[in-house]
């Protein structure tokens, strides 16, 4: 028995680790965190997380826990499945599948191990999410932070969802007919079905359906209804409220025994997909699953890049031009050409953004330029690490200029690409609002420098990507202060703040050179 538990523990920890290392985990976590902070609005802006009949529900631990859990469960129930999905396809591609199939361990052990890993992974994501909500509570909360209140609500709301989502991901990977796109689409319907339960339960038509709502949103509504009259109008997430109405306060412990009981029942029902997966597991039998059918994981952007592949021909002449331009300028041009060739979507967007950048008015130009910066940042996040990632560090360092010049040319290429995306907007803004134009230019320069610096020092594009997305989020959501307005989105940036960002950029790009090759 202990040996069995040891195997399951090893499998589960491995699964969780493999998934936690993926970039998609970071992006999802950041997205969920961004969403939660957006939903837990600042009441000073006239918005709140939960409003009942126009009255604001105070940001106590119980209210924030209920509201944030209800929102997170919807996102994680969908994203969680797709994050967990596809490990069997990886096993098939790597050849590990046949080793697993030929091993002495039973199929049930493997399926349970995978499921436990999925549960562990989603629990870790939930834990990270809860930590950020606690932080938000510290900033915007109305009462003391009560971790146990959060824990209780998260376990009751998100627990069954995690068990169900991990169960579905395991079942859809274990049963051969659901391994492909069919399974992906089917799960979307399962998720939509869960959403459809919400109004049914909220209107009190079928309370018996609550245990079948694994996401727990109906249970949240039921829990709220036990303490406040929600029939008059309940709003959850970025809700308007009447500041003249007295604020409502939820009790510390909002869960009644009956609702908690239905959540426990939901947790039991959530195990059904896992139980189905046990007898249906294909055990990597070549009769049931073929390695050739296991396609590599491709992001939606990579799929679009595939469709737009013919556009890569447009940048072919750039390579020839780069060969003719001597020194670092020519090599930087080659890096620009390679970046665009590998991501034809960028070519399409480059073509698409120039005219709007010329004709939009200044107010509309700010969010437009920000969107351009957002795409560009993602595009160049791996520019300074791609040689290492592709095992081409040595080959690329043996060309004229060596590794020292590579650092500078890749920084220049990032900057040039940034200016290709925002250059017209900068020129347009320069006419009407030179300070804003300067902020955009300095912001792009600084971000290009940070991309090179972090790529050089950390050796992974994820560091920059995480910081970049966070900075972008901050610059959008912090509407006051010049320093936070990195690319002039709000029009708060000043000459001093722009020059400071540019100065930080200079320090960063020079700092990256300190690290020896």
């Amino acid at each position, binding site marked *: 028995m202990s040996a069995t538990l040891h195997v399951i523990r090893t499998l589960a920890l491995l699964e969780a680790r493999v998934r936690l290392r993926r970039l998609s985990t970071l992006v999802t976590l950041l997205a969920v965190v961004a969403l939660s902070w957006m939903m837990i609005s600042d009441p000073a802006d006239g918005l709140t997380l939960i409003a009942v009949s126009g009255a604001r529900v105070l940001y106590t631990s119980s209210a924030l826990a209920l509201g944030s859990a209800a929102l997170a469960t919807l996102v994680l129930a969908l994203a969680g499945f797709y994050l967990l999905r596809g490990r069997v396809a990886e096993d098939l591609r790597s050849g590990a599948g046949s080793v697993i199939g030929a091993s002495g361990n039973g199929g049930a052990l493997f399926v349970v191990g995978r499921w436990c890993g999925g549960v562990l992974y989603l629990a870790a994501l939930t834990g990270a999410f809860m930590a950020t909500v606690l932080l938000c509570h510290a900033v915007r909360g109305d009462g003391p932070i009560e971790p146990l209140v959060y824990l209780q609500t998260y376990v009751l709301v998100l627990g069954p969802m995690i068990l169900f989502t991990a169960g579905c991901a395991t079942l859809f990977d274990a049963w051969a007919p659901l391994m492909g796109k069919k399974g992906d689409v089917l799960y979307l319907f399962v998720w939509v079905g869960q959403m459809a339960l919400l109004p049914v339960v909220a209107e009190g038509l079928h309370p018996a359906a609550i245990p079948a709502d694994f996401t727990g949103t109906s249970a949240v509504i039921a829990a709220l209804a036990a303490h406040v009259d929600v029939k008059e109008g309940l709003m959850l997430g970025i809700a308007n409220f009447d500041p003249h109405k007295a604020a409502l306060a939820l009790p510390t412990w909002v869960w009644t025994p009956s609702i908690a009981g239905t959540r426990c029942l939901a947790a039991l029902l959530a195990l059904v997909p896992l139980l189905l997966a046990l007898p249906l597991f294909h055990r990597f039998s070549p009769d049931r699953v073929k390695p050739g059918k296991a396609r590599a994981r491709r992001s939606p952007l990579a799929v679009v890049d595939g469709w737009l592949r013919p556009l890569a021909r447009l940048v072919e002449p750039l390579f020839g031009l780069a*060969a003719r331009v001597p020194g670092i300028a020519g090599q930087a*041009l*080659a890096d620009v050409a*390679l970046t665009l060739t590998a991501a034809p979507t960028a070519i399409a967007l480059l073509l698409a953004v120039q005219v709007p950048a010329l004709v939009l008015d200044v107010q509309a130009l700010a969010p437009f330029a920000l969107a351009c910066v957002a795409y560009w940042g993602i595009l160049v996040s791996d520019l300074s690490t791609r040689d290492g990632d592709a095992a*081409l560090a040595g080959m690329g360092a*043996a*060309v*004229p200029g060596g*590794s020292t010049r590579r650092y500078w040319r890749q920084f220049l290429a990032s900057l040039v690409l940034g200016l290709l995306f925002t250059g017209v907007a900068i020129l347009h803004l320069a006419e009407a609002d030179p300070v804003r134009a300067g902020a955009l230019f300095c912001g792009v320069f600084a971000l290009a420098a940070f991309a090179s610096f972090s790529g050089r020092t950390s050796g992974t594009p994820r560091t920059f990507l995480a910081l970049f997305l966070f900075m972008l989020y901050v610059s959008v959501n912090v509407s006051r202060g010049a320093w936070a307005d990195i690319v002039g989105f709000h029009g708060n940036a000043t000459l001093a703040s722009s020059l400071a960002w540019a100065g930080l950029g200079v320090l960063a790009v020079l700092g990256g050179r300190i690290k020896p090759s």
Partner: protein
Amino acid sequence: MLELHNVTKTFGKHVTAVADVSLRLEPGVVGLIGHNGAGKTTLMQMIATLTKPSGGRILFDGTDVVAKPDAIRNRLGYLPQDFGVYRDVTALEFMRYFAALKGVRDPARIRRLLELVNLHDQAHRMASTFSGGMLRRLGIAQALLNDPDILVVDEPTAGLDPEERLRFRNLLADLGFDKLVIISTHIVSDVENIAGQLAIMRSGRLVACATPDAILGRARGQVWSASVAADEYEILRTTTHVLQALRQGGRVNLRIAHPTLPCAGAQPCEPSLEEALMAQRYAVKEAA
């Protein structure tokens, strides 16, 4: 053409990857032979200017390449042992990128090189979908883009099937007619028929640098063949260096490296290059 004077590379205080290597190399194929960890790759990386020596000098046509690395980079082709390709880039685009980095302006050269390595039909295919052999050939085409005078090739046949190995060896032999081709390998058969000079490395040191004939000549009289009974074989295993043992019926046919007659009935035989190198290695070991 290329001179190495007392080249040393140390990592930290205690690890010496290359110790006091001196070599003088002229156009032709040079095989750099040694076991894993002998220091071959580090030496190649220093010649390719990827890393600087901790001591000594590397001169290319009289110019110190440590002080002026671009003097050799412009005339260097380098194929590392392990390399990959960028995602979502075709073979042709990969070549175009490196051509641009090296300042190669003739687009026809890319096509010619892809033809040379027999990849012209696959030029528009994503390089990431290439087999190991195709990837090696693309790598060598990349290394030849700037028509280099020195070609540094690290473990070129690792992971290739026999047909690919043969094709690769012939290609490198052809290139060695007018260029200096340095091939690092621990597989002796990769270089025994194409290298005009062999540099043998052991534990970071250059232990020999000679033609294959000279190395074979030194080993003559030290490699023996014999047919012995199974129980005699068990004794010989402990007293001599058995290079090969093939059981046939109740007897075992042996090839043995030994400075003197290893057993009654043993006959001196013509050593292969690999056997010659092993015999030399055992002799050095025993002398130590």
